């Protein structure tokens, strides 16, 4: 019999279950590796994504440039790393912004209902009835494109996902008998929210967070691809792809678009796998694999 305190044992169980989920662990490793590479390599290798190498325009991989150079002679590898910084930052930060706005609003609407429900959920409907890409394009062009405005706009416009999701969950959970039982033993509103409702509503939110991160990375690349995102010379995976649009590049210089494409797919997949892993780990009905 374990003699641990209850808090430890719960999170230990979760951790144990998460670490036994192979795909999630692989995904987590890839993401951590990416983060490390993106943070450390520029410092260690003194990469330079901005200066042109006048001796090598559109040079194929090999030699001084591991992944070749683009049509202005900039090092593709360096741009890829710096682009990764931007893409991951935009993805995680904007998903966090969405979560921070959406979850409290959804909780408020689902738990207290009444006027909160009407105002918040109708607002969400209004937000969702706009084609988000066009709204983002307009906002970005009004505020002026930069990493921060892109992050902020994607983040703020993403709140509806979280709000709708947690609202729906809370609506069903607040009618559960264990919530009634908590009221019957005299539990106050706040502990009720934090100990009964949020833990039971949160698994889908975490999964949605990972999904949203992946989506934001894609949105950022789409924006950059349309020229409204991160502005050159600053690199992001999206605008590296944007620069590789011409048919000659696509057909004869694959080093310009294959690496960012692969990284994008890999990152988005890894993040989604981690989401799956978290979902399984938080489900207390799944047994710990020994």
């Amino acid at each position, binding site marked *: *019999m*374990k003699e*641990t*305190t*209850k808090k430890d*044992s*719960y999170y230990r169980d979760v951790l144990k279950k998460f670490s036994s989920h192979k795909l999630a662990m692989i995904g987590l490793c890839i993401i951590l590796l990416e983060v490390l590479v993106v943070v450390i390599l520029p410092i260690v290798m003194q990469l330079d994504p901005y200066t042109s190498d006048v001796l090598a325009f559109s040079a194929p991989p090999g030699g001084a440039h591991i992944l070749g150079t683009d049509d202005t002679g900039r090092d593709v590898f360096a741009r890829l790393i710096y682009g990764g910084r931007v893409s991951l930052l935009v993805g995680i930060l904007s998903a966090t912004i969405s979560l921070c706005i959406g979850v409290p609003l959804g909780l408020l609407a689902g738990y207290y209902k009444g006027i909160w429900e009407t105002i918040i959920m109708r607002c969400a409907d209004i937000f969702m009835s706009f084609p988000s890409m066009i709204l983002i394009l307009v906002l970005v062009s009004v505020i002026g494109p930069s990493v921060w405005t892109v992050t902020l706009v994607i983040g703020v416009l993403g709140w509806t996902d979280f709000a709708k999701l947690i609202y729906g969950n809370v609506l069903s959970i607040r009618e*559960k*008998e*264990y919530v*009634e*039982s*908590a*009221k*019957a*033993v*005299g*539990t*106050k509103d706040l*502990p009720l929210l934090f*100990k*009964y409702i949020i*833990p*039971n509503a949160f698994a889908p939110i975490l999964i949605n967070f990972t999904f949203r991160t992946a989506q934001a990375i894609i949105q950022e690349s789409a924006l950059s691809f349309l020229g409204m995102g991160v502005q050159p010379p600053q690199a992001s995976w999206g605008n590296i792809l944007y620069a590789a649009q011409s048919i000659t590049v696509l057909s004869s210089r694959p080093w310009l678009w294959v690496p960012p494409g692969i990284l994008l797919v890999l990152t988005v997949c890894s993040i989604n796998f981690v989401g799956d892993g978290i979902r399984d780990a938080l489900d*207390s*009905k799944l047994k710990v694999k020994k």
Partner: protein
Amino acid sequence: MLNETLVQVNGLSKQFVTAKTFTGKPLKKVQAVDGVDLTIHKGETLGIVGESGCGKSTLGRTILRLIEPTSGEVLYHGENILGYNKEEMRNMRKKMQLIFQDPYASLNPRMTVLELIRAPLDAFGIGSMSERTEMVAEIMKLVGMQESQMNRYPHEFSGGQRQRIVIARALVLNPEFVVCDEPVSALDVSVRSQVLNLIKELQAHKNLTYMFISHDLSVVKYVSDRVAVMYLGRVVEIAEKEEFYAHPLHPYTQALLSAIPIPDVDVTTKRIILEGDVPSPLNPPAGCHFHTRCRYATEQCKQCRPPLREEAPGHFVACHLYDKESD
């Protein structure tokens, strides 16, 4: 039995609005509890029986104000708790508790047994953390669980064990009054008697007053001191247990009791077969709710509601059949 009144329910009603018009006005209403009068004495067990959908559970929950009643009053030690504000009512929960029907749904799956049973202590900030743990250990022993099971999650337990957790949680604050809402109907027959005995033992041990809701007449007979019968939101008969099973007065009660099987092949019972179904509570019949299925129904039954009257000492019945005798 002491006759000190603990809970007095006067004209308690609860309507649920099931459909609204576009402007929000109620369109359809279900009268789940319809003017119920009850008295529960200190230390006794009042059994509430009735078919599913007759409002037993709603009655229990409105008495505890887990569902806000539409009208009526609930006097606890002579004080109307329906007038209490949220915080006063929360404090009342130390004294009145509910044992839930379904031990699978009423335990938060994300909490350990310790956290579950400790929740009432946490809510009222009783004692230090280590004292609370001690109290939990003590009550766990009392309901027949081992202290070592404290850090497990509810899904690791069987239905009977879970129901013990539910009971422990309800009793850890040492309440006076406990509503048991069909505490054994979700359990296997094999563990029913264990849990019933536990509930009875705890009553003697902790000096509890029970309102025991069930649809099972034999279970009610086993645990109750007095029995009340509900039909479509109304109480139709209340009596001491022996009197109730020996001399049922209301035609509905008579029909119910005649349906209890007797485990003896030589005994032939005269079953009273009720015609038809229970009318929908959306559209209950006028007058006595039972008149559509009653063998003795008269014109009067179709028009006016019979009041709950004392026919014999302590034996109340709501039926027009007994009108003349009391005149």
